[in-house]
């Protein structure tokens, strides 16, 4: 008799547990279906109000739930872009949430047999990644002082999303271009400001160094780095005027020679990569001359003349 009671009790508990689980799943699916309905009617705020609380509870492992939330944030982001800018606070927040939720939807869905949720999540992520890249380009075009980190953050987000879409994609050459563009943007700013800025100059140099770090074979980064260092030295020399004291003249000269020496290595490296390039040869003629090394300056001058002669024949 006791055994029967025990069996009945266990069975009742099992039924209760499975009913609870079923009811949870049923409840979760209900919520998702309702949210999808609302999203289809473009009532994204309402959809999110229903779905987001469930993401940390009953729907935390539901790919559809994560997708509908991510999709709603993506659409809200698009609305923001339409009425304003993709880099406004609200747009950034919507896009950031959309990315996190869509990645989650893809990860849950692709763990088992992938459904259309995976491909729809990837499509949405593809779109969002491109908006990040677009912000990188817009940021570089309309560059203002100190935007470097923001632009690099957009690029990093772009790469992060692309790595979810396809692990084998390599965006290093694009990153090199971003660094070079940021270096150029800072240089142009430096040239256009009436007051000198060591901070802007440091940024120029740092971006080129980062580009070289990313791609050891990039000629332009090395050449431009050398030119920027050299020109900085010349600019400092040019700042000498009738108000400059003797000790300042000595200090400026020391600082200039240091910059000229720093310019030499990247220029020599660029020359080794492309020995026939006239601008590099001219750079070496000039740098060695500024370092009062007439012998080396003449050597590269002769090499430059030989290249010019060969070109004209």
């Amino acid at each position: 008799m006791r055994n029967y009671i025990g069996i009945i009790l266990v069975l009742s508990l099992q039924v209760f547990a499975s009913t609870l689980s079923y009811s949870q799943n049923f409840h979760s699916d209900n919520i998702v279906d309702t949210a999808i309905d609302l999203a289809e009617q473009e009532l994204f705020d309402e959809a999110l109000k229903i779905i987001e609380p469930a993401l940390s509870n009953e729907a935390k492992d539901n790919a559809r739930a994560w997708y509908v939330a991510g999709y709603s944030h993506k659409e809200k982001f698009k609305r923001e872009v339409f009425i304003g800018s993709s880099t406004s606070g609200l747009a950034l927040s919507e896009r950031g949430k959309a990315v996190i939720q869509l990645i989650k939807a893809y990860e849950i869905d692709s763990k088992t047999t992938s459904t259309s949720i995976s491909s729809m999540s990837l499509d949405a992520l593809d779109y969002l990644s491109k908006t990040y890249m677009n912000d990188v380009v817009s940021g570089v075009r309309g560059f203002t002082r100190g935007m470097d980190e923001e632009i690099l953050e957009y690029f990093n987000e772009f790469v992060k999303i692309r790595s979810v879409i396809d692990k084998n994609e390599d965006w290093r050459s694009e990153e090199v271009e971003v660094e070079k563009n940021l270096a150029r943007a800072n240089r142009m700013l430096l040239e256009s400001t009436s007051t000198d800025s060591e901070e802007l100059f440091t940024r120029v140099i740092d971006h080129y160094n980062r580009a070289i770090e990313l791609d050891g074979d990039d000629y332009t980064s090395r050449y431009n780095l050398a030119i920027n260092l050299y020109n900085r030295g010349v600019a400092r020399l040019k700042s000498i005027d009738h108000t400059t004291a003797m000790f300042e003249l000595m200090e400026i000269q020391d600082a200039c020679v240091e910059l000229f020496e720093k310019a030499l290595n990247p220029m020599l490296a660029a020359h080794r990569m492309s020995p026939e390039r006239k601008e590099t040869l001219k750079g070496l003629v000039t740098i060695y001359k500024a370092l009062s090394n007439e012998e080396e300056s003449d050597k590269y001058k002769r090499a430059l003349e030989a290249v010019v002669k060969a070109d004209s024949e």
Partner: protein
Amino acid sequence: MLRLGIRNIYLLLFAIVISLSFSWLKSDQGGPKLDEANTIAITKASFLFQFARSNDWPNDKKQGNFRIGIQGNTALYNLLVEKYAGQSIGSQMLEVVEIDDSVLMSEFIHVLYTESEGDELLQLIEYTAEKPIMVVTSVDADSAMPEGAVVNFVVQTSRIRYELDMENALKRGLIVGNRILSWAITR
């Protein structure tokens, strides 16, 4: 259906914009141009101005314009004119002149920079001997300071420095300023 078509067109346009963005990033936006200013001339010009400003000349040479003469280096002459012409040395207006023999005969030069060497230099030094003219030379690092010159530019660890012959300065009646004296090097 219509909505789907519009969406596809939108996506296509977006893809085009993105691909243009990529190519814009990779296109040559105009790199920095090498500044071809003559750095040696800038440095020497700065020193010559310091020499003019920091030394003392006999009272009878403190009238009229203060002249810096340049022989054999047009770039240096142009730089001095561009940067320092119109400045004053004490109560005298600074005038930069490019030197040839006729100028030397007709005008007094306070600071005379020359790139002459050998006989030409000897002749110049002989002509200016015992006059309160600060003769500044610029000879190879391996060569010794020319006899009779007051200052000589030399290259030391890629920097332009100068050496000073105090005896010659005194012989010419020039009083070399402390600042000039303290930065002079010896070899």
